[in-house]
């Protein structure tokens, strides 16, 4: 971060660094993939008890209410210490969404469990036939009478559900009405994954981990209380905290992790085995990381002050920075660039392929880079929508 730190911020950085040095478990450092819940959730709970699990949440809801600068300090120090990724659907998506749109009962039931790590969440948006064209989704939910009154009965199929096989809860978009515009008739619903009728199957990624899953619904009964917002109006709910979500998904956290990988690879490789052009590119790529941090600070501080700012470009910027960094890791690694398994050397991890392959997801999930560019072109730059009458 280029921003000069206030005394309080500098003290916070030292506090974070010291605490991570003594508390972050060695076995979890520099993991590429999220540790399985049994391994990773104790660390999640430790951070939660320290009060640092939800820097971006308001204090009133149990978050840290951290400034943008403090958020970046946390990201930088966690990247340096090599602490692992968490399941983020609770902290970054449904948590802020319930804070904005949930009923008090929904907030009381779910927010504390997200903070404490008692509930892992997944996002049920994509379907086999509905990816970039999300509003064409077809998982059906019908309101039916039951012994205790009305409830939703869900049938269908979600896919590419990150951590769907580990999640306790899913927030999902389901179709309650088929007439009218595709965005109409979608309902936003919270589903307990222990409900009878749910089957899940993990899906292996090209990086070799089981990052996502497919989830099948067969007459899954969900109480109407689990609907967020109004029935048929879930699209508005899902997009209500879009700019907040764009901040999270475009944060510099992943780029800082990738930069750490590059530094470790450079430390381990004799300088004369790396072409000068690669050394040069490795120095210049730090400009891209600082650019991303500057862009994040600008957007997050605008949000803090309630000023409308464009955050739709952050994900593209972040994805590009991570990809540049990991391309460079490959170039520095030389002949080791083909090695499947990372090598531990002292405290460092030499990984040429794991994060490189994992990072392919960045341009795909949460709205592919192509969809992001469509959105910028038509909604930010005001270019005409293809096929529209003009």
């Amino acid at each position, binding site marked *: 971060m280029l921003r000069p730190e206030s005394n309080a911020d500098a003290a916070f950085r030292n506090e974070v660094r010291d605490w991570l040095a003594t508390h972050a478990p060695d076995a979890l450092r520099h993991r590429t993939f999220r540790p399985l819940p049994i391994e990773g959730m104790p660390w999640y709970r430790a951070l939660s008890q320290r009060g640092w699990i939800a820097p971006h949440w308001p204090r009133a809801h149990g978050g840290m209410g951290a400034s943008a600068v403090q958020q970046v300090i946390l990201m930088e120090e966690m990247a340096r210490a090599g602490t692992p990724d968490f399941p983020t659907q609770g902290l970054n998506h449904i948590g802020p969404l319930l804070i904005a749109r949930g009923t008090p009962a929904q907030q009381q039931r779910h927010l504390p469990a997200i903070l404490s790590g008692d509930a892992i969440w997944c996002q049920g948006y994509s379907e086999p036939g509905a990816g970039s064209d999300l509003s064409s989704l077809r998982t059906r939910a019908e309101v039916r009478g039951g012994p205790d009154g009305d409830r939703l009965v869900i049938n269908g199929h979600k896919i590419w559900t990150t951590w769907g096989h580990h999640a306790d809860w899913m927030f999902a978009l389901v179709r309650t009405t088929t007439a009218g515009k595709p965005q109409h008739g979608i309902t936003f619903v919270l589903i307990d994954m222990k409900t009878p009728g749910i089957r899940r199957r993990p899906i292996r990624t090209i990086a070799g981990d089981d990052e996502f899953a497919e989830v099948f619904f067969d007459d899954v009964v969900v109480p109407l209380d689990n609907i967020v917002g109004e029935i048929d109006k879930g699209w508005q709910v899902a997009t209500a905290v879009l700019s907040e979500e764009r901040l999270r998904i475009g944060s510099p956290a992943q780029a800082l992790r990738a930069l750490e990988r590059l530094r470790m690879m450079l430390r381990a490789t004799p300088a004369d085995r790396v072409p000068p052009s690669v050394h040069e590119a490795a120095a210049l790529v730090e400009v891209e990381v600082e650019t991303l941090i*500057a862009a994040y*600070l600008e957007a997050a501080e605008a949000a803090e002050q309630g000023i409308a700012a464009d955050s739709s470009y952050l994900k593209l910027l972040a994805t590009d920075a991570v990809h540049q960094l990991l391309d460079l890791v490959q170039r520095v690694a030389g002949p080791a660039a083909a090695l499947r398994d990372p090598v531990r050397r002292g405290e460092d991890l030499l990984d040429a392929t794991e994060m490189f392959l994992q990072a392919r997801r960045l341009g795909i999930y949460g709205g592919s880079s192509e969809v992001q560019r469509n959105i910028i072109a038509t909604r930010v730059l005001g270019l005409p929508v293809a096929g529209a009458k003009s």
Partner: protein
Amino acid sequence: MNAEHSASLRMIAESAADAAASFGGPVRARRVHEGEPVWEPATWKAISQLGWLAIAVPESAGGLQLGAPALCVVAEEGGRALLAPPLTMGMAAGAVLAEAGEIAAPTLRALIEGLAHVVLVDAVESADANLAAHFVPDGDAAAHWLVACGLGHEFSARLLDPGAPGVALTVRHAVDGSRLADLHVGRATWTDAPQVLSGIAGEAVWRHGRHLAWLGDAAYLCGLMDAALALALDYLRLRRQFGVPIGSFQALQHRAAACHVDVTATRALVHEAARATSTRKEGWAAAAAMHRASAAALRVTKEVVQFHGAIGFADEHDAGLYLRRAMTIGARHAGAALAVLQCR
């Protein structure tokens, strides 16, 4: 503090935008392209009356002491208007002259009162012990030259009158129509010239001036590429081929979006780098900002020409004004890329 910081800068930006548009604009930039000088007394005087040339000068030296963030905001609006007068150089020269002691005080006054332009010049000693400097932007418009030579304890900066005997000036044209001066100074003239900065401390002042020039021109390029992209977006919405506006084609939409990412992100970096002045990161931050801004400005303005098709390639269209200006400003600070590699 952040809210205050951004609110006061927004106010400066708003007033700067109006003023820059009145002194600049594509029509004026075209006149420079066609041979008119970038500097003329009335505009320079008017610019000085806004306080811009004193923006990075301490209050104790008669300046506004608004710092690098304000300097960048003003320069950005200058770039948006394709402002031709050498504003960034003037602002940086003011900051350096303010630290250059009593001998330099009249020169500083002449600058901030809008009576004269002052350029900062890095010279090298040639084999015959004379001094030479090349490609000095708008050097022919300057009444005073502050010329630096040497490193560390050997560093020395002296005030030179470009019309004095023993000083030879030759002028070439830059691609945007502005002028680049080559300077040759005889040994005797150099040693007779008043020394206003010297040694390690003087070199630090000089470096700070260079950083301000990088930040200012980086911000200028942010404004420039934003304006160039706006021009292209208007065209993409208006121009029809195959029965539809060409801006509805995804191939062009995605490239316009990429330009938008480039412009917005570079701007964020430049303004963040400006906040790092007077910290140990000042040099790297300013170099990084300049390096990224010149690269991004070239990427964006080349795309802007391409978005326009044949008319963009025609000299009569403004797209070329933006590209040629971006080329000129970027070339001026080619050393920034090297500094990114060296100073972290």
